């Protein structure tokens, strides 16, 4: 059995990749995928801990996270579509009018 530390390191790496994507990429779809990466990094920790400690609750939570992620993507893609119609682009640094 793979020790828990490897899973945690793997999860941390995934999360950092997601953070990098969120910070650095300008394409809205990639931005959404980066958010997915961060969510799934958390899922990995849930499932690994669940297997390690022999309780089912971690896996249940990962299911919740997936449902949440699906909902989030639905909304997110909707926003991207609207932004595209408005700005003819999906570069997330372009829409800057929503401020003071």
């Amino acid at each position, binding site marked *: 059995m793979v020790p828990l530390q490897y899973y945690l390191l793997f999860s941390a790496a995934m999360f950092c990749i997601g953070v990098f994507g969120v*910070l650095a990429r300008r394409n809205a779809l990639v931005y959404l995928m980066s958010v997915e990466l961060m969510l799934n990094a958390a899922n990995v920790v849930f499932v690994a801990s669940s297997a390690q400690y022999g309780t089912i609750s971690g896996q249940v939570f990962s299911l919740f996270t997936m449902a949440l992620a699906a909902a989030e993507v639905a909304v997110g893609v909707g926003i991207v579509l609207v932004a595209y119609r408005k700005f003819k682009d999906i570069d*997330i640094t372009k829409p800057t*009018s929503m401020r*003071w």
Partner: protein
Amino acid sequence: MAGSLVTAIPLVPFAAFLVALLVGHYAPRALPRGGALPGIAATAISLVLSVWAFLTVGAGGATISRVWTWVPAATDSFALTFGVLVDPLSALMVVIVSGVSLLVHVFSLGYMNDEGETGLPRYYAGLGLFTASMLAFALASNLLQAFVFFELVGFCSWWLIGHWFREEGPASAAKKAFLVTRFGDYFLLVGLVGVLGTFGTAAFAGAESFPALAHAALEGEASVNTFGVDPATWFTTLGLLILGGVIGKSAQFPLQTWLPDAMEGPTPVSALIHAATMVAAGVYLVARLYGFYALTPTVLTVIALVGGFTALFAATMALVKREIKQVLAYSTISQYGYIMLGLGSGGYVAGVFHLLTHATFKALLFLGAGAVIIAMHHDEDMWKMGGLKERMPTVYWAFLSGSLALAGIVPFAGFWSKDAVLHHALTVGLGGQPLVLVAYLMGLVAVAFTGFYTFRMVFLTFHGEPRSETARNADTASANMRVPVAILGVLAAVVGLVNVDPLKGVVGERLLFLERWLNGPLPGIAGATAEHYHELVVDVAGFHGATVSPVVSAVVSLVFALAGVALAWTWYHVPEPVEKTDALGPAKTILYNNYYQDEFQTWLATGVTEPLANAVDVFDASVVDGVVNGVSSTSLVASDRLRRVQTGVVTTYTTQLVFGLVVLLLIVLLLGGWF
């Protein structure tokens, strides 16, 4: 059944008020004679009901009943209620009020309608509301209810003084009357709150009333919340606070300045409100609370001193006035001073008696003056009158009856009541109350002044030769003015006979109808009788009367009064009178200008209050506003800088989020001891 009929006494004039107001506004043509007829009908019904209540009380039917609970009693608290108290005093008062009001309504037909005045529905609505409030005040069963109607009569006074509000004088006089009486009413309001806080009840009469509780507390038989102060001191404080409202409403020194100005209103209003009834509300309140005032000798002495001083002070000013209504206004102030003197020296019966006779003869004098003013086409200057006796004999004879009553000439009304007051003050003063004796002496001197100014007015107005074209061609009074004046003229002559106090030793107690009436007994209401009040005054306040023959006292004051009348006779009962009081020189100017009290009060406002207010305003504008404005401008500048954080670019927000996350992680790790 009986209770609801008594409740109708104030409600019927209230209905007349609504009719005059609403019909007068929406369908003025449908209102006969501008609303006078509903008012006359309503006051007549009230008078019948009042007389019925009077007779019921005479048959032992004094009652207290609760009509409406405003705030029900909660735990550790008390109820605020409105009720009806029918006892000898209130029954007497409602008869006076509804009777005078009826006569004034009739008189107004001649004074207002026949003269083609406008705004009649407004006028009669005011009279109706006033009558309703005054009756409800007289029947009030507790101090809170009395306060509410006390304010309402003040409001009606403002309404009616300002009837001709398009002219500057009446509008300004109305405001002054309202504000000055309201100044006194603040003290009454504080006193009312104090009474409720101390006793948990403001009821006037009965075993659970606050005068009864105060008596029990002084005897050590009951405990009330005196806020840590000695009960006697605390009750004195409460009594003085309530007295503030009395002094304002009854135009006593130093709050009397509004009453002469109130003469700007229509003369029937002056007769009803500013002579016979509303001004009486103040002294009536003292009589109503007599069970409480009789416990506090200090307050009684203050009442007597204020009364005696006001009687003299106002009489001196009446000596030199040129306008007939001004003389009457100052004599009203002076006469209410006598009532206060009577009540303050422990003479409950004497004070109430003078209240009754004064209401009669002063309403008469004002209505008579009203008839004269109409005949003179609204010229009130007595120096332009003269010889009116020939033009209006009915008014003259009635006016003469009222003047004899006012001057206190035997056997007219004022003689009996004023001498009852003075005799009472004299006995108590000689019985070990030197301050009351001082008040008595002031009252005695004022008797001579009263005789002088009264007959100066009579001779200048009615005797001699007419001194102007208007007086030569004066109109005769119409019937609807003559009838009320004649009725009151007869009453002014005979009403004093209900209590021939100075002849007490001669005719026996049997003929002292008023005293027996006020003595009760009152089954069902504990301690609202004159007998009980007298016991309190002697036992608790310690006012013991020396033995002075009432006849001697009466003869002394009669001599003073006759001296005043004789002086007026020699100076003014001549074909060509001249102003003899000019000999007073600068003193006359001071008297004519009312001792410059108005100027003094104006100076208080402009010379003291205004600079003080300006200083406070500067402080407010610089310091208080400075702090407030500083806080707001600081936050405006700061937020203007800070909002630049919001770029609108999603990546910026993400960066801030991640930065925050990293900082949080670092804090957790540092605190967790990982480094």
